[in-house]
């Protein structure tokens, strides 16, 4: 009979970072690599691609998608999904449009022309309220996130159509006589030579990055998405964390709606259709896991850039819009395939390492009793 001494887990396995090849580093940073590859390919195909003007233009296009993606990131890290943001973009634009065109207050028999900062605040609040409704449905009424936000997708779009009666609000530049000018600054202003939309994107990125890395909310967010039951038992206010995530996502959507309305100086109720899918794609390309608990602001940003540069680059080199759609779809699926491959690689490596430790333990055990 073998009577080996109980082998206590001896030395810790050698740190995984010791032997990481270049290939694995590239796989790890694949979203960034993809972005570089895109830039190289398009700049080879078109001289116009890698010019400062074009880069700024493309980044401006990326901006609102990136803002949406960052809101979506929080939702996805929490383990949820937010399908309503595209509709919220439309609703927020329409709300801004109504107020800038003159808000008819029939009770007072007057028309109000609120200042632009009031308009911005109200539109963002509307986005936040849509998010709050999502959060309440999900956390208090146990509606699955997919269903709850699918519901608000329809309701918010319907609300935008009802408010505008289906028509577009044009000419939102305001009237100096009414003191409500300046709305177009959001979409067309260029402080320090950089479009306002890009500044807003940077601001949102900093705030959200600080939120997820430095605050208790960030800790709780990743714990909730990683294992909700464990988070709950660890005293994490899971319901409040989830609710806040949808509110933030709604506010991001409101901001995106404002930027678009300002850029076009008009608001259409159809704006923002399928934007939620672009945001989800960006988050996923950025390495977040749809099952929650994993994802970074940096990743979501890069993901948004990949999608934006891909779309604009394909236009620039003259690929038909039909093919653009196909290519976009392929890129998204490829991103997830790589993600899964990397996960498998990590697991296989961990198992191999552990098996190696076992064999070593066994080898040291068999030759006679230890001291």
């Amino acid at each position: 009979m073998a009577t080996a001494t109980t082998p206590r887990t001896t030395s810790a396995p050698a740190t995984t970072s010791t032997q990481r090849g270049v290939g694995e580093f590239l796989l790890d940073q694949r979203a960034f690599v993809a972005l570089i590859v895109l830039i190289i390919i398009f700049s080879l195909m078109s001289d116009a691609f890698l010019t400062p003007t074009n880069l700024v233009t493309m980044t401006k296009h990326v901006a609102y998608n990136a803002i949406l993606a960052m809101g979506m990131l929080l939702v996805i890290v929490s383990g949820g999904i937010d399908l309503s943001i595209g509709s919220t973009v439309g609703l927020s634009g329409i709300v801004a449009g109504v107020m800038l065109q003159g808000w008819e207050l029939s009770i007072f028999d007057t028309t109000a022309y609120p200042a632009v900062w009031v308009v911005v605040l109200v539109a963002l609040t509307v986005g936040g309220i849509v998010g709050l409704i999502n959060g309440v449905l999900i956390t208090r009424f146990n509606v699955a996130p997919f269903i709850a936000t699918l519901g608000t997708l329809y309701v918010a779009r319907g609300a935008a159509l009802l408010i505008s009666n289906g028509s577009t609000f044009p000419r939102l530049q305001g009237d100096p006589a009414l003191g409500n000018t300046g709305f177009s600054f959001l979409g067309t202003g260029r402080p320090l030579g950089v479009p306002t939309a890009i500044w807003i994107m940077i601001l949102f990125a900093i705030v959200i990055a600080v939120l997820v890395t430095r605050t208790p909310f960030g800790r709780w967010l990743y714990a909730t998405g990683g294992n909700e039951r464990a988070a709950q038992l660890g005293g994490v206010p899971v319901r409040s964390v989830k609710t806040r995530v949808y509110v933030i996502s709604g506010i991001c959507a409101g901001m995106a709606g404002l930027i678009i309305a300002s850029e076009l100086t008009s608001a259409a109720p159809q704006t923002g259709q399928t934007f939620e899918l672009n945001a989800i794609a960006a988050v996923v390309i950025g390495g977040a896991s749809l099952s929650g608990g994993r994802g970074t602001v940096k990743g979501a940003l890069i993901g948004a850039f990949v999608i934006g540069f891909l779309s604009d680059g394909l236009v620039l080199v003259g690929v038909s819009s039909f093919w653009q759609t196909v290519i976009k779809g392929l890129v998204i699926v490829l991103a997830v395939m790589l993600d899964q491959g990397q996960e498998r690689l990590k697991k296989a490596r961990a198992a191999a390492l552990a098996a190696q430790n076992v064999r070593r333990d066994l080898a040291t055990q068999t030759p006679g009793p230890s001291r």
Partner: protein
Amino acid sequence: MSAAPAVDTDVVMRATGITKVYGGTHALRGVDFDVRRGHVTALIGENGAGKSTLMKIFAGVETPTTGTIELDGQPVTFRSPTEAVDHGVAIIHQELNLCPNLSIADNIFIGRERKRGAFVDFSAQREAAASLLAHLEEPIDPTTLVGNLRLGQQQVVEIARALSEDTRVLIMDEPTSALSATEVRVLFRVIRELTARGVSIIYISHHLDECLEIADRAVILRDGNVVAEAPMSEVDLGWIVTQMVGREESALYAPMAHDPGKPLLEISDLIVADPDNPERLAVKSVSVTVHAGEVVGLYGLMGAGRTELLEAVAGRNPVHGGRVVLDGRDLTHASIPERIGAGLVLVPEDRQRDGLVPSLSVGRNMGLAAVRRFVSGAFVKRREERKAVDETSDQVRVKGSGQDAPIGSLSGGNQQKVVVGRALLTRPRVLVLDEPTRGIDVGAKADIFALMAAEARTGAGVLFATSEVSEVLHASDRIIVLARGQVAAEFDPRRTSREQLMAASDVSSAAPTSDEDD
């Protein structure tokens, strides 16, 4: 390790050099194991010794990392449970693998439905299920939904499912954990009928007296190794326990004998519904008091209501009656964060499901419950948090590559220490632990008990639940036995025997059967 490698026609199934690795955990380290025709082999070992893992490999649920399995001398690889069943190897799982939304008959034939043409032959299935149940002396209507059965009856369904297959090797992993004494007798009768027909049984049970009674041979597993095997007729309980633990049993445990102070946690007349089956009460009016500086052990069989009680105390399950008071403060309906703030924290039973966040690092896992301690303004004071986590890691003796390592890189025992460390970081006044040694190695076990004793010495109260008699006897100052959701007895561990405890926990042998349907 293998003795006399002669060709042994008596061996139906043979495993050689089996290792199994989960993440960073070595569940099995080169196991050799023979199954003999028409014999009952008892596979004995503590929690985490690797019994269930080995059996899952036999049944095709898991594949071994290395090693081979032979069936009648032919090497086989089971890639799925279905393949194992096709080879005549079936398993009755420890965790019941039944679909509560389906009927008994549907559950018994799931995956290999009796068919007539392209359609399921429901009437044939019902008849076959009824006769199986009758044979097991459990005459329940086979159309009853499994979710409406009590745990013991569900286990009988699980047994019936294994019997319905044409089995040569039948693995029973804790088949009696929820059975009453009469049901165990029926099971033993069925086992003898099976072995007489040449079926080989691998029997796993915590109840060593059951193993002594039914098995022909004992194989002892410890920390993923086979450490001893012998014919059952040549061994006794003492030998088994010594082989299982691998050292003098008392060396595992820290010395107890604390001076209980004032009452800290007072649980009175607590009533909790079974979360999976709300019509049933899991805890029926239980009162327990934990004093400062005291370790209270809660002993009971599976289904006794231990977990439900502790989860209700920790705020996970709603309470339907009674009170939970911590040092004069009523926490009966407090939220979990409020309870943690007040100093009441639970180390959950199921580490993977309720304890760990797999996507987070070791440090983030450990700091999870104590984030509020390190908040200044809107931000987390990360340096202080790191320092506290490092200190607690040392205190609970986590062995690993630091707090930034992924939690999956730790062994089961070290993962458990992280979960215990998380609770300690909240500075608890009463530490509640549910099966704190489940699935961890002997060394980690000793560390956990030492931590519990140390907490009590600093004046905290400790309440822990276990299904291991030796643990509750050696690691508590006071023992409370739960059976069927009620306090069945209270013991002083210094004046109590294993037999007394087991008898008190097995309420079904004494209570009238009318008590069973609730």
